[in-house]
């Protein structure tokens, strides 16, 4: 299966490297109007064509599927164009910037008879996948209170689009939506939400949000996302139920830590790469997607799931803006 990459930014490069290691998949072209140097370098390394226009890429008949990894406000246009060109699409999360866009994308792929996968990769992170299975098995009994946090430093990127709320939707749509998808997957639909955040605090390159959820099941949820840390990347969750407690915190789960003497000239010695997993989550996710595009079973997240998470994220943003709790009709 021959893939075209729409976008050559951070995530496009992750997915291209992953695809390159999946048997039966190859990356044949990158299209990015502002082709970043690192994208050019990777394209050359993979022997892929370097294009500036996504239209040109989509017009090529030797490309079966595309990865759309561009700023969030452009997801809809490019996914719709790709569908009309008859390509299967893997689109990064969030599905879209607005509900209307998301609904349009689902309609267009249906009409074109192509497949649309959405990159809610948290379902492929082993601690979150295991927790989902654990809850389904009843390890914690009936879930009562669920907490989840995620975040770190603000993602400074060329063009600064993450800091432009109209483009990225801020930390809620970009970061918190990871948890929201996992929460809906694991605990079912949400009935009510109330949130507070720094959206309108006038802080450039900083955002943070805290939301209280009430699930239809009656369980209470708390979700937090931040772009207000100086550095690092932090995730945690805990699920308290009638029969037990399950929790995970990425700060306590390291398997390899270094403490190094400085170089002979006194300069700090850079830490070697840490250990993680043999099959990291982006690889497992993409393997599932490629298999689905080739006629196999659906991956863990559907485009409709992506739309549900999007609706919840936008309700949280609305609550932050209005100061009111938002209830969903059943």
């Amino acid at each position, binding site marked *: 299966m021959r893939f075209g990459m729409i976008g050559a930014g951070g995530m496009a490069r992750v997915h291209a490297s992953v695809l390159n290691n999946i048997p039966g998949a190859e990356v044949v072209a990158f299209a990015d109007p502002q082709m970043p140097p690192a994208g050019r370098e990777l394209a050359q390394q993979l022997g892929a064509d370097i294009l500036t226009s996504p239209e040109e890429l989509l017009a090529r008949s030797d490309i079966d599927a595309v990865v759309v990894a561009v700023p969030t406000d452009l997801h809809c246009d490019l996914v719709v164009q790709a569908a009309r060109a008859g390509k299967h699409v893997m689109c990064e999360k969030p599905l879209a910037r607005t509900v209307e866009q998301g609904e349009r994308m689902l309609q267009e792929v249906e009409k074109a008879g192509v497949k649309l996968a959405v990159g809610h990769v948290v379902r492929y992170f082993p601690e979150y996948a295991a927790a989902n299975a654990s809850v389904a098995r009843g390890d914690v009994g009936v879930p009562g209170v669920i907490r989840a946090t995620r975040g770190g430093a603000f993602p400074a990127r060329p063009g600064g689009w993450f800091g432009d709320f109209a483009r990225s939707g801020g930390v809620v749509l970009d970061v918190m939506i990871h948890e929201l998808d996992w929460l809906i997957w694991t605990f079912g639909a949400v009935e009510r939400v109330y949130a507070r955040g720094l959206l309108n605090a006038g802080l450039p390159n*900083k955002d943070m949000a805290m939301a*209280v959820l009430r699930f239809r099941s009656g369980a209470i949820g708390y979700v937090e996302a931040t772009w207000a840390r100086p550095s690092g990347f932090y995730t945690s969750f805990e699920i308290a139920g009638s029969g037990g407690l399950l929790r995970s915190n990425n700060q306590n789960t390291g398997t390899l830590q270094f403490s190094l003497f400085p170089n002979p000239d006194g300069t700090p010695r850079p830490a070697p790469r840490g250990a993680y997993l043999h099959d990291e989550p982006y690889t497992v996710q993409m393997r599932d997607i490629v298999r689905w595009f080739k006629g196999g079973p659906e991956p863990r997240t559907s485009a409709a799931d992506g739309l549900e998470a999007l609706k919840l994220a936008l309700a949280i943003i609305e609550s932050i803006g209005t100061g009111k709790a938002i209830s969903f009709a059943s």
Partner: protein
Amino acid sequence: MSEQTIRVGIASFAHLHAMSYAHAVNQLEGATLTGIWDEDPERGQKYAAQFNTTFYSDLDSLLDAIDTVIVASANVDHKPLVLAAAAKKVPVLCEKPLATTPADAREMIEACAKAGVQLGTAFPVRYSDAVRKLRDAVQSGALGQTLMIRGTNRGTYPGGWFGQREKSGGGAVMDHTVHVADIVGWIWECDFAEVYAEAATRFHDTEVDDCGMLLATLANGVTLSLDPSWSRPNQSFPTWGDVTLEVTGTDGVASIDVFNQNNELFNNQTVRAQWQNWGDNLDYLMIKDWVEAIRDGKPAPISGEDGLRAVLLVEAAYRSVESHQPEKVG
């Protein structure tokens, strides 16, 4: 004056913190545990024997014999016991929450003021070195301007009268909102303006809420998320619970976990792993400070007004639980 031995009484052992307070008084130089009154004479006699002191079946006789009284009854009995102490002009340190309603708390504050005696609220967490150092850091501006705060005071289910509404006045939200509310109010020297809350009964067979989630706004605009749930599994969790705070400021993030100084014990005789805390005895530090204030005729280190601030938040939280919208505090 400073040579004087302070005679301390304890009114009711309904709350098991009374044990810890009695230990503290017995450890202190310059204080003596003169006697115990308890509405349950059997329990009173038992603890009087255990702590080597006298059981008083008549409250007024105890109050006549002491310089200060510690009230450690069920929540709804705080008010009559504090009013009885005020009537006898005995300074009183009251277990938290100060009262189950703001009106009761105000009546207690007024009665003590009129009698010219100190009224204190038992908030031992203020004596944590981590909390004090965080306060210094926040007040010196080391974190810049505070943006958002995450707090938890999760615990196991205390059972007994805590689960009986007519004794407790409420459940987890009543019991576990106040510690974090107090340290936040103290560190930022600020009252609460508004709160949204969810509460539910998810873990235990009890008539009160055993879990909840608050998103409160301080008068300075800062958001506090607060998890007061009794969500630690009683049979298997390695300790009673936690008090944590994570502060995100414009210049960085600070986190505290007040009870994280533990040795972990795994023992084949017990099902659960055990965290043996080796941190400071906060109850002892609080009782010591209280006794010194009484001896030196100084104001209560942690006042009735401080207690009221937390009660106001609890009362508004329960209103929000009913209205499904944020509610003004006070």
